[in-house]
């Protein structure tokens, strides 16, 4: 089962993981959580704004999840990505991959986040009390 969610609201890592863990008898679940940190503004971050291209973001996330799901024989794959105004330490992205074998769950998870970072149409802007910067791409 694949689930993709893109929304401005926060999410409960807890709730999402528990739900997946309890719903299936696959033994290995890997999750990645990316949170807001102060990348360029050196401790003066007021908020982080995430802009996205909705139709394409859904498409890229869906295709990526499907590819990983089949390639690594996952039992579950969940991707949540937020947009809008976020504060420091707020969760941005959650990827959960579940499989019978831990190697597959790890590989699928890392593939998904690596792929999203360079292909999913989201853009981050840091707003400080003085200024605003678009975050530049890093590998």
């Amino acid at each position: 089962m694949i689930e993709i969610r893109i929304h401005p609201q926060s999410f409960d890592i807890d709730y999402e993981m528990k739900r997946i863990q309890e719903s299936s008898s696959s033994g290995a679940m890997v999750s990645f959580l990316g949170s807001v940190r102060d990348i360029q503004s050196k401790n003066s971050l007021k908020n982080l704004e995430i802009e996205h291209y909705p139709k394409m973001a859904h498409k890229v996330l869906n295709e990526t999840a499907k590819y990983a799901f089949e390639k690594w024989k996952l039992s579950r794959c969940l991707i949540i990505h937020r947009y809008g105004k976020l504060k420091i330490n707020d969760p941005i992205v959650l990827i959960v991959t579940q499989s019978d074998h831990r190697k597959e769950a790890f590989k699928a998870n890392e593939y998904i986040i690596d792929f999203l970072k360079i292909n999913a149409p989201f853009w981050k802007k840091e707003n400080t009390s003085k200024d605003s910067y678009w975050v530049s791409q890093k590998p």
Partner: protein
Amino acid sequence: MKLIYFAKVREILGKSEEIIEVPSEIKTIQNLIDFLISHDPSYKAALEDKDFFVACDEELVDMDFIIKRKSEIAIFPPVTGG
């Protein structure tokens, strides 16, 4: 033709989308970009450093991709999600 812009490209252009008429000799994405730049200096500022991507109907495409007239063409800087 529908054009949409995101992030820095959108900010520099001061608009998030527009519908434009393009001459029939505009075939590829490269032709379109050249046309936009010659047509208004704000496109020059937004696109001249070449640090942008183009998606045609939600699919990333190269500069020599042949444009379909009814497509939605998105122009945006390198993505920074995740």
